[in-house]
């Protein structure tokens, strides 16, 4: 069961990367809107994944995106930071019932509100770090901040849509 779950996750990852690289990266949405949805793979990993798997995995996923975007190391660094901060954020957002029955952060057990907040926080950690690393200065602060906010909102929205699409009605609460 565990194995099937992991195989499904990696198939999902392949589709997410393909969607990111072939569709989202090619959209002509101007200089402010650059949505990145691939972080969803990392922050939706099962809760019991140890950090020594999670961090290198985040690094690798980031690096694959970097290869397509010609931004060596930038996505990787943002991904690693996000993966590292996932545990504290989860702790902060602990629902009253705890995480006992929950395998991974998902809508099914934790509800749409919880999942939206969690997704938004993770996306904004990733985007804020990534866009500042990309520009590597505080020179164009207004541009960068607007880019973070607009891209972050679109990314969060896209991830929520995708999660809803791939959750069956029965599973939804």
């Amino acid at each position: 069961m565990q194995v099937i779950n992991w195989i499904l996750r990696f198939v999902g990852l392949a589709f997410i990367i393909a969607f990111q690289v072939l569709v989202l990266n090619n959209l002509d949405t101007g200089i402010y809107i650059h949505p990145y949805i691939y972080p969803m793979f990392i922050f939706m990993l099962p809760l019991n994944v140890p950090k020594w798997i999670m961090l290198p995995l985040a690094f690798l996923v980031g690096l694959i995106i970097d290869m397509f975007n010609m931004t060596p190391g930038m996505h990787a660094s943002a991904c690693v930071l996000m993966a590292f901060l996932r545990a504290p954020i989860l702790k902060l957002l602990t629902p009253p019932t705890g995480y006992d029955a929950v395998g991974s952060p998902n809508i099914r057990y934790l509800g749409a509100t919880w999942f939206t907040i969690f997704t938004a926080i993770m996306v904004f950690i990733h985007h804020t770090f990534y866009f500042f690393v990309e520009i590597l200065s505080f020179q164009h602060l207004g541009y960068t901040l607007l880019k973070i906010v607009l891209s972050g909102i679109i990314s969060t929205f896209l991830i929520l849509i995708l999660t809803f699409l791939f959750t069956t009605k029965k599973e939804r609460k």
Partner: protein
Amino acid sequence: MRSFFLFIIRNYAIILFLILELLSFWLIFNNNAYHKTFFLNSANYLTGNVNEKYSSLTDYLNLGEINDSLLAENAGLRSQIHQSRQFDTVNVYQMQDSTGTVLYTYIPAEVISNSFTEVNNYITLNRGTKHGIKKDMGVITSSGICGKIITATENYSVAMSVLHGNFFTRAAIKKTNVQGNIRWEIGDPTIVTMVDVSEPGELQPGDTIITTANSLLFPRGILIGTLQEYGREEGSNFYTLKIKLATQFSRLHTVYVVNYLRKEEQKSAEEAAINNAGN
């Protein structure tokens, strides 16, 4: 010693996090200037194929437009064929039937991946060293300048777009031949700035800006764009010109890589001159 190991084991997550971040930043700082060769080469093998397949898929959607631009270009080339030649003979009368020495050759290539809304933009081409492309060659389109090759593998090459923080070339106002430097500032992918222009004289919006002969990237007279507005900062001697690019980076498809056959000669002559002047 024991407590040291215990410390490492207890805090392995933070240490691993720091190691991976250091690795990322090492990659960022080592690759992000002009020298992206290692990363891009390895990336090219992996992503070149995917990009090319995707590009061949979208090609069909643009066929009409491409045909039009190719027709226009053919017509243009017919009338311009002498621009890439230089007459070596001193005797002016012989010019009539001399064919001149070829200074520039052009390698046609297709754009298989192109960005124009990032902070630093790159163009991937489906031609590489096998077809004669080398680092530091210029890239042009039928409508204007486009970029500069920064790395080439056997079958692919990657060019730094004009829309890149490190791109830089000399340019001149066609009317007066006053020169300056072309740079791109983050933001609008249709505008570049021409800086360090002194005494431009009377200018009008719409004036043509072209490449100069002392650029090692492009032949003389390749269109860069048209003047949009210009001005001077308080207390500065130099004017800054805003130029509307002739090349539409959102519609790149076919490009030409410029091979300047006397580049090494010109370069070494210029270097020798600098060395000699120093002595």
